[in-house]
């Protein structure tokens, strides 16, 4: 009967994907910056993952789920809080170090410095533009490697590296209050 096959599929999905629900939730929470929104996003993402489960091949289930959670977070933000996804748009189409990247780095600085309530490092991380925030979260908190981060975010490893560098430079300047950076 169909529902037996369906149940088998579901229990396989649950055993492969649900162990990474905390990781998925954490990413959505960092991207949406809100508990209720993160829960909505994760639910939507898991259902989406379930629909595409047939396309999942044995491999890294965590990265697979994170990629879907990330994509769902962004489309949720675009629908509900478009301002949250704007800052690094200038980067699109530019090679690393291009005008867009410089602009974005400038925005980040201004953004972090314009807030007087940023006394805590986690609040600073939360204030980063989403594309910089996500690489920090994936690297430092999810402890993913560059290749995995590239896989989750869908950008080349070079971009992961430059974003990570930019995010750290911005955080250090805002956090330690000293200008130690070189490249940007």
């Amino acid at each position, binding site marked *: 009967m169909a529902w037996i096959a369906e149940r088998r599929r579901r229990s396989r999905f649950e055993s492969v994907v649900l162990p990474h629900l905390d990781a998925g939730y*954490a990413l959505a929470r960092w991207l949406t910056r809100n508990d209720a929104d993160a829960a909505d996003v994760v639910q939507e993402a898991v259902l989406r993952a379930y629909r595409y489960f047939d396309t999942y091949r044995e491999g890294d289930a965590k990265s697979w789920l994170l990629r879907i959670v990330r994509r769902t977070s962004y489309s949720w933000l675009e629908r509900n809080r478009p301002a949250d996804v704007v800052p690094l748009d200038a980067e699109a189409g530019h090679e690393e170090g291009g005008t867009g990247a410089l602009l974005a780095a400038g925005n980040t600085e201004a953004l972090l410095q314009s807030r007087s309530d940023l006394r805590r490092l986690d609040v600073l991380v939360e204030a980063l533009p989403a594309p910089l925030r996500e690489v920090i979260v994936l690297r430092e908190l999810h402890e993913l490697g560059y290749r995995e981060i590239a896989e989750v975010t869908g950008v080349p490893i070079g971009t992961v590296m430059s974003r990570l560098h930019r995010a750290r430079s911005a955080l250090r300047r805002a956090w330690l209050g000293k200008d130690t950076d070189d490249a940007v």
Partner: protein
Amino acid sequence: MMRCDEVRPHLDAYIDGELAEVERTLLRDHLAGCPECGPEAAALERLRNDIRLSAPIYRAPEALRSRIRFALRAEGAASAPAARAAPGWLAYAASILVAVAVGSGGTLLVTGERQEDTIAGELIDSHLRSLLASHLTDVASSDQHTVKPWFAGRSDVAPPAVDLAGEGFPLVGGRLDVIGGKPVPALVYRRREHVINVFVLPASRVDLGFTLSRHGYSLRHWNEGDLGFWAASDAAPSELAEFERVFRAATSG
């Protein structure tokens, strides 16, 4: 020995453990002796530690887990070939009812009651919807004197809202669903992380007195006076039986 300007672009990759063995060794040697690059690498490491120490640890809430489990069931039903052409949950629930009846060797007589089939299907549908739509309650209160009057004038039946927190089933609130074109009151209880929806309808012609249990959710029915109660939940069937016991004890006394 590497020069500083050769080292700097690789510092992030170095502390991230992304360099190949040869490069890593070269950088390590440089960092050990360089008064500029050494502290720079240490500052990056410190930033990482500070981030890890300051960042809250986010975990998926239990309520989200149960919501997702329910949603997956609903999803599975929608995509199952047998149910694809039918109006979603109704047909799915009905097919489960049939399966239960067949699977248990005829001890359940529910399939003979077409009308009850439909009601059961719609109730499960309602139960799942209440979990999926972040719309669990219209009136959120554990106070029976708030919940009970809320239904007055909104539905034909006046559900006996009692808080059963002392028995492990706290009252969360009430909700009005539309089932079979009519407003039907639902009392919402919790059992640990599980939600129990108790739909209150006019008493059925027959007291079905059974628990359906398939795919992790249960539906339990009983009549009390001129009211019929349908409790739907993903709590264990034994817990629903326990719920019926304490609910009846509290409402009939």
